[in-house]
């Protein structure tokens, strides 16, 4: 049987001329879908335009030094976002340092070592962590995680590492540490899910070749499978970073909300998202509100850049497949 030279239908002619032969129903259908699809670009344009317009007074008044000024004085009308930018980066990076080994461990276990019957249920349970609302994480963090940190973790950390500047000062509960730990738990499901898909996309021949040369199962994973998916795993981590940067409620409830830059994880800090959540409704002056919009704009730009980077890395490993584009 010979295959007929039929053009695949999905490869629809992108040119509008192709519509000339189409019937009225088809034209209408295409026009309707196109109109709906145009909503998203219009939304993004409106979002950016609105953020820039609202942030404009603050941008003109404070200029680029807004990024490294650490004064935040609503009464005097002087604003600088340095503490929040620092807090956002610090909490997200600490969270990433905690979450990546955990998530990578989960992904490796589920793709390489776990018994077949265990894989689906465990993967599902870990993904369920992503279904827990942020505000519930916040509640749990305040009443369970912080007492646990105070009772067990902080004394141990202090005993071992108290001489470093990172564990200095009194632990009141709401702190960079508490915010980072809750963020870590929240981003584990995202990193684990994408890492797992990346590892599944590694060809079996990689494993077989390593084992064939006498490697143990762990050596095969660590020397043949993981390096093969390196770019994708990096992408998974950066995707987690993107999530952590923009996370609002749980962090607002746990990080202490203080405009300070300090090295100690035990001290309160602030993030950009938390500042907007806390202060937006009490911003009484126009310049205060505008400064908060500028914080929002910075946050938006940073997350867009981070997410774009993650997608590029993931696409490099799994070109053409939908790895990582699935919303959890």
């Amino acid at each position, binding site marked *: 049987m010979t295959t007929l030279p039929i053009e695949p239908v999905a490869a629809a002619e992108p040119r509008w001329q192709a519509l000339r032969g189409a019937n009225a129903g088809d034209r209408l259908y295409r026009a309707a879908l196109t109109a709906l699809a145009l909503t998203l670009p219009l*939304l993004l344009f409106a979002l950016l335009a*609105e953020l820039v317009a609202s942030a404009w007074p603050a941008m003109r008044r404070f200029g680029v030094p807004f990024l490294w000024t650490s004064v935040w004085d609503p009464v005097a009308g002087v604003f600088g976002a340095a503490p929040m930018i620092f807090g956002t980066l610090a909490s997200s990076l600490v969270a990433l340092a905690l979450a990546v080994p955990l998530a990578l461990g989960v992904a490796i*276990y589920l793709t390489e070592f776990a018994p077949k019957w265990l894989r689906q249920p465990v993967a599902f349970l870990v993904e369920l962590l992503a*279904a827990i*609302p942020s505000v*519930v994480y916040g509640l749990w963090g305040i009443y*369970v995680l912080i007492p646990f940190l105070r009772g067990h973790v902080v004394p141990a950390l202090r005993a071992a590492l108290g001489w470093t500047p990172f564990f200095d000062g009194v632990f009141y509960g709401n702190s960079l540490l508490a915010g980072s730990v809750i963020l870590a738990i929240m981003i584990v499901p995202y990193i684990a899910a994408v890492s797992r898909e990346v590892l599944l996309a590694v060809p079996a021949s990689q494993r077989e070749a390593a084992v064939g040369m006498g490697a143990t*199962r762990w050596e095969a994973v660590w020397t043949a499978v993981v390096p093969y998916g390196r770019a994708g795993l990096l992408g998974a981590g950066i995707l987690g970073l993107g999530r952590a940067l923009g996370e609002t409620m749980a962090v607002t409830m746990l990080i202490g909300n203080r405009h300070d830059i300090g090295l100690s994880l035990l001290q309160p800090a602030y993030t950009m998202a938390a500042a907007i959540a806390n202060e937006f409704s009490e911003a009484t002056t126009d310049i205060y509100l505008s400064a908060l919009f500028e914080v929002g704009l910075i946050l938006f730009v940073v997350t*867009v850049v981070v997410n774009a980077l993650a997608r590029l890395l993931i696409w490099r490993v799994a070109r053409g497949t939908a790895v990582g*584009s699935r919303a959890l």
Partner: protein
Amino acid sequence: MSARRWRRRLTSGAMTGLVGALSFLAVLALVLILGDLIAKGASSLDWSFFTHNPVPAGETGGGVANAIVGTAIVVGLAAVIGLPVGIGTGLYLAEYGSGRLGWVVRFVADVLNGTPSIVIGIFAWTWLVKPMGHFSGFAGSLALAVLMIPMIARTTEEMVRLVPHSLREAALALGYPRWRTSLRVVARTALAGIVTGCLVGVARIAGETAPLLFTALGNLNFSTHVLEPMQTLSLQVFVYATGPFDEWHRLAWAAALVLMGLVLLLSLAARWAVRQRSHGSAR
């Protein structure tokens, strides 16, 4: 030689144990959070919790009837706005998305998918709350719809793309116009997958708080008027959890348990829909 081999085997075994332990730890976190929710919240769940509105601060008792109804209205309205646009965009991407506009829409969807929800919240504030002069449940719904559309669009596209070409070609060969083929044959076949995507999307926005802070705002009274401030479970949990009263903390756990139950129900329904699909397409 044999000592070295032994050591390598030991390392392999130890690392296997380690990654297993890490997986256990991740599952343990879930179990602990759900366990605490039930342990601290379940005892407060009684009939009056579901049927009463909040009482003034300092008094005991009161419930979340207004928040439950508010969540249903705000999330329901968001779904009514967001689902058609999201599904339509997904169909566009799958059917006509090979051109430049398709590339742009796909890219924009991914960008918006990663946008922090608080940013969407202040955007909705400038577009709806500021011009209207007051907070409203409707503004909250729109913010949630914006969060939802890119997610629904991408899952719908993915699901529609899974439909085999032969099906589409068969319908076209029988003289079906393209629009009917797309709706009656292709979308129909991908329906279970699309429904799953929608349920996951609704589950995710049902727990959102940040976009509602400056839009729906919250309301201590019972309200079904979408142009006025409206309470949701997520906002109620936030206010109660960060408030100063023990009574509020008790209610926060109970409200969080109800919210978690709602989200879990939607997630499990989505999973069930997937299962239906895989049974249906088993060859």
